[in-house]
């Protein structure tokens, strides 16, 4: 039972990470390899702000806002160049440019704050149906579920969200309806940056996050996104949960390194089983 809850907790964070990759790739064809660094930056900023404001919720909100701003800057500058090319070349250019960006941001982060941090939530543990649930788990579950609900509402109910999904399904059709794909891409990239920021902060509730973990988080996000079918939002969430459970149970019963390999194996199997979905 405890393992199941741990698995779900980890899965929700993984789902958020994967979602950050999925929406950007689905909408713009850019595989954002710098997403994990965004998460790491959010954690470091939150820790810094915590020292100034001494209010955890406020620091977290401000950190997310800061990283969202960073996302906007990146979209307006670097990604504008990437979107100029088309098709497969854009995909490759996207990989290379975001890889360069990841290296750059990673370097900056190492200079600013070389160590890794974890945030403590301050929510007390509780016992539900005889199972001990950690405070951090409760916080992660509540926050990520709220975020998923918000995202669901956004993509299903609001005009902007529907417009984004239109671009995802049929770009020409979207243009004919008067929707600018470029604007939607900016919106989605900024959204993915803030999702990555939240994911990073939630991740730091249970693990250490810092410059060293940035790329690791990117790879985790990538795996979740692949297993979920890369362009499917629901798929990413489901994949996150499944992988979280797999990772927690293998880690508990077999060993930590086998759990990591199991994650990659899941990604490879997913790729081999459903290539047309990913492409």
């Amino acid at each position, binding site marked *: 039972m405890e393992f199941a809850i741990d698995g779900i907790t980890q899965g929700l964070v993984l789902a958020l990470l994967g979602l950050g990759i999925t929406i950007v790739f689905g909408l713009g064809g850019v595989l954002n390899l710098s997403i994990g660094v965004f998460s790491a930056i959010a954690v470091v900023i939150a820790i810094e702000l915590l020292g100034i404001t001494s209010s955890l919720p406020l620091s977290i909100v401000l950190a997310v806002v800061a990283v969202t701003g960073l996302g906007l800057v990146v979209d307006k500058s670097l990604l504008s160049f990437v979107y100029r090319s088309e098709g497969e070349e854009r995909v490759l250019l996207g990989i290379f440019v975001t*890889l*360069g960006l990841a290296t750059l941001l990673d370097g900056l982060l190492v200079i600013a704050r070389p160590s890794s941090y974890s945030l403590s939530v301050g929510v007390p543990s509780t016992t539900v149906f005889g199972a001990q649930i950690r405070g951090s788990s409760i916080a992660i579950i509540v926050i990520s579920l709220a975020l998923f609900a918000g995202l669901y509402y956004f993509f299903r109910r609001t005009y902007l969200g529907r417009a984004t999904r239109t671009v995802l399904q049929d770009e020409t059709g979207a243009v004919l309806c008067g929707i600018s794909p470029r604007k939607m891409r900016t919106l989605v990239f900024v959204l993915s940056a803030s999702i990555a920021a939240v994911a990073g902060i939630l991740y730091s509730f249970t693990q250490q996050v810092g410059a060293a973990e940035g*790329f690791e988080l990117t790879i985790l996000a990538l795996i979740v996104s692949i297993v979920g079918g890369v362009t499917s939002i629901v798929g990413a969430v489901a994949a996150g949960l499944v992988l979280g459970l797999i990772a927690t149970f293998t880690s508990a019963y077999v060993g930590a390194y086998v759990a990591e390999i199991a994650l990659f194996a899941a990604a490879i199997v997913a790729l081999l089983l459903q290539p047309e979905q990913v492409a």
Partner: protein
Amino acid sequence: MIHALLTRVGGTDWETIRLPLVLGLLALVPPVVFREGATYVSRLIILAAIFATLAMALNIVFGHTDQLFLFVGALTGIGAYTTALSAEAFGVSPWATLLVGAVLTGVIGALVCYVAARLQFTVILIAILTLALQFAVIEFFVGARDITGGSTGLIFSGLGFESLQEGFGIHEHVILYYLVLALLGATFAFYEWLRNSTYGLAFDAIRQDEVAAESIGVDVVRYKVLAGFTSAFIIGLVGPLYAQLEGFVIPGLFEFQVIDVLVLIILIVGGMRTLLGPLVGAGLVIWIDEGLASTGEWRTVIFGALLIVLFLYFRQGVVPFADRILNDRFRTRERIATWRES
């Protein structure tokens, strides 16, 4: 300019003499540059040669058949670990097991390409697949402590010529340099041959239009698998030499950020689908990387920024860029003249 000059003076074709010329010049490096006690410089030069060979391997599989291998680091590691571990297990010198590592690596490359070609993976899918493999393999190197020695790894120094070293007082770096250079030379010569062979023609056809190539009887799967095997085989040979240079085999040597990122930059900067691109790129990138060492902690930041700029503006590579400039500036008139004559 050199191009035009050589054609005029020697009367021979630059295309045919450039590789022997470049390799000849590279063979002169140890007596001229290597100094006793200055192993820092010689290590860097060997490293550049190693990365040039890796970039050439990637050039064959990625540049010519559009199969983006993002697990060059893992393949290098598999080559090194297999050679080192099988030598230990059989109680023989790594020289005897060098091919075991290379063949295993080649088979893995061929297998990945076979699966990818069968399932008609796009370049992006192969990239993701190999990236996942890269991290899984590194995870295995770190985790399977009983076999690989975990993150502390193994000591490796079997690929030297002790008798030569002691008998003639030749530094081990000199010997290693010539070993790497031999592999580099063979790889580059093979590439030159490949490009002018029917294989090269088939690769071009596949890259330009897979369906059209298939329709005129090119066995796409077979050629893609061949390219994958060849490249992985070369990478598998480089692995043990790389380990010999570092003196040990540890997972950290073969990480994505250590090998793949660098090899990709080298290939893109030097110029894909060119003979000298990987070599020029390796020299340039290793030199830049070293130059940035003086900037201390800003090194990664500047390197990242450089990466972005290079990818956005110099995607065609330095060698094609220089070639174009040289041609436009210095040979335009000449070409018009020859054209009028004919």
